[in-house]
């Protein structure tokens, strides 16, 4: 186990090193941030001074070397645009994104798995058909449309839910205040629509496959109650592929809350990263992608460990 963790850590560092290099290089090639920071009529002298102040007058290799040197000291550099440490800016906005993604994931799981099971047991019943119809909508309707329609109905027409913002925040999260919860409802539903439908459909397919297997027939023949067969024997075997997908999807949620955050003016990292890319704010983009890769690495690790609990044949 220790060796496994060590290997994993080593790989992660390598991944992050590569990511930082690629991002650094792309941002270096993408254009000149100083051009966007100074007015059009700035003198050549001002441009040179600003470049020097930001260290952008150096060659790529030297800039990247400086960056690595600073990273070794735990410093990811100051944002060009905000003038503050890039990592602080990213971390300051991570709780908002995490809370949205975690809640959306929980919501999708606690609704998606039971609904998937229900629709797999009697695939031709009316209830199953209704469930499948809505899951089709969830899979195919684009996020911005869902978001805007919710806003139109619940904020503009009925005025029961706030259309945007995070509301009152207590201890890094808005899920602990009533005002905050009201602000969370629509973004969470919007963000989870696709995930919910995906998990539901995967559960259904998995269950339908597993329920045809011989050991289920054996269990039935042995007289094991239907409830235990479905929720213990069958579900456990359906869960393995599901957990992989949920893991990947969670990473996707954290990294791609951009649209939801934009619609609901949610102050998370998604909006930050779009703005920063547009403004060529390299330190923030690099810091953000490094944070995201840490999260992905962590999720993959957790998924691997979870396997061993669900399927004892799997060893790390």
């Amino acid at each position, binding site marked *: 186990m220790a060796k496994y963790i060590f290997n994993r850590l080593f790989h992660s560092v390598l991944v992050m090193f590569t990511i930082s290099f690629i991002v650094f290089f792309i941002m270096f090639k993408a254009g000149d941030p100083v051009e966007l920071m100074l007015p*059009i009529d700035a003198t050549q002298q001002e441009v040179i001074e600003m470049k020097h102040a930001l260290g952008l007058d150096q060659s790529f290799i030297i800039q990247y070397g400086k960056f690595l040197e600073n990273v070794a000291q735990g410093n990811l550099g100051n944002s060009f645009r*905000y003038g503050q440490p890039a990592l602080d800016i990213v971390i300051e906005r991570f709780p908002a994104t995490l809370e949205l993604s975690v809640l959306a994931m929980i919501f999708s799981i606690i609704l998606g798995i039971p609904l998937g099971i229900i629709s797999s047991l009697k695939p031709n019943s009316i209830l199953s058909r209704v469930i499948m119809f809505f899951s089709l909508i969830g899979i195919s309707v684009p996020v911005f449309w869902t978001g805007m329609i919710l806003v139109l109905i619940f904020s503009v027409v009925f005025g029961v839910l706030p*259309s945007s913002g995070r509301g009152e925040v207590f201890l890094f999260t808005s899920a602990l205040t009533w005002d905050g919860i009201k602000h969370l409802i629509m973004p969470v539903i919007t963000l989870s629509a696709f995930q919910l439908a995906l998990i539901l459909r995967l559960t259904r397919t998995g269950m339908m496959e597993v329920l045809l297997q011989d050991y289920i027939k054996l269990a039935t023949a042995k007289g094991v109650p239907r409830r235990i067969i479905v929720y213990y024997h069958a579900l456990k075997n359906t869960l393995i592929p599901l957990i992989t997908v949920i893991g990947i999807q969670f990473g996707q949620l954290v990294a791609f809350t951009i649209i939801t955050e*934009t619609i609901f003016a949610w102050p998370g990292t998604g909006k930050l990263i779009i703005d920063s890319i547009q403004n060529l704010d390299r330190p923030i983009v690099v810091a953000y992608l490094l944070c995201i890769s840490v999260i992905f690495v962590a999720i993959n690790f957790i998924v691997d460990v979870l396997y061993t609990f669900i399927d004892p044949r799997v060893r790390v």
Partner: protein
Amino acid sequence: MKKLLIVLAATALLSSVCFAKDLKIGIASGALAMDPYYQNETTTNSILSNIFDSLISFDKDIKTKPSLAVSWANPEPTVWILKLRKGVKFHNGNNFNADDVIFSFDRVKNWDKSGFKSTVAMIESFSKIDDFTVKFVTKKPFPILLRKLTYVGILDKETVEGKSNEWITLNPVGTGPYKLVTWRKGDLIKLTAYNDHWRGKPEIENVVFRPLTNNATRVAAILSGEVDIINRVPVVDVARVRRNDKLNFFVKPGLRLIFLQMDQFREDSPHIKSPTGKNPFLDVRVRKALFYGINEDAIVKYVMKDFAIPAAQFSPSVVFGYDPSIEREKYDPKKAKELLAEAGYPNGFEVQLDSPNNRYINDSQIAQAVAASLSKIGIKVTVNATPKSTFWAENRKLNTSFFLMGWASADGDASSILDAIVHSYDTVKGFGNRGRFSNAEVDALIDQSSAIMNPDERLKYLQKAQKIALTDLQCFIPLHYQVDLYAFGKTINFEPRTDSRIWVFDISTQ
């Protein structure tokens, strides 16, 4: 009895909460820093103008008026003596005096990351005469010094001195009518009234600025009553806002001119294919043909949904230097074709029009409409719309033959555009002149005008420079001025300003 008192007290408390004058403002972009010298950017300047005072300020029509300076004299053309306001206190109770002014100008001029260096570039030196008098010396006679001073918010020396730049940008301490309560980046900026402000106690007690960058989100927020004011109402949603009987809709002509500029100095321009092999834009008749051949009225009507004003000159009438005698000439494709034929291009030519696609209102659609218009007079235009980060980088490298850009004469004086874009590109002026238009007579007029202290006399020079550059030589093609669109609740008294800033001190509720 005791119970009754408690109920009464609670009611009183509640009603005071209800009637507390709070204002929520949905803005199209957020502030970048709370350090007034870091980024010279419209929204940041707008929000910080509520926290920091400058020596001089603009009224709502960008005329200068006293602020922290109460009076000034200009004994010699390059020397300005400013008397400072007495009894002014910063938000933390510190006194305002000449030391704060000297400290502030030292930082705005010399800090290596200052975004306002060009604003104060003409100031040679500044010194303290006594606690409430300062002296500014300019490099040359500089008639618009006072306009430039409106951009420099005054910091408190005692608070800021010795602090890191990271600290300064999170802890704004000014003398303005509002002080910062919280800044949750990307979410909200909360300000509260500074009751000891020298202009008097502000009417609105608490202000929340919320960056709602998505157009639909911003409109939903005002329609649902979550915010009281929004700026930049998207043109497609104007009808919905107007239909709502709880909202006012306000159109304020802005300062930004949208125009087309073209390569006027290279025989062989990078993105032109002409039958003669030469750069057609070198010929004034071709430039005129473009002006007559673009149906600007159609652009305003269909692309801008009537929310833009066709431009006949460099800046709108509120700007000093405006010439009432110049009117926009009519769209005349026939005349355009004649001019083209005269210049030797009866069958037109091919050119690429570069345009940003995320900088100005409907920028890439305007470029498309221009291309459609010009195709009717035989000029084949391909539109190359790119994000502003790419656009400006290529533009500075002059890797363009024909491009769309905008300019706001934000200090309210025509010298802004004349110096930056019309003057020949040299070591001191013309840095935004990416078409490299150059005319000795125009340059002379601009240079002379910048040293004339008498406004009437100066106006003549500015107008003459414009007449030659634009009417005679068509140095670029003016399209239209953008307008600012606001929506706000019927119970709010709010009059938008020409400089697009939201100055909360002048807002009140009924």
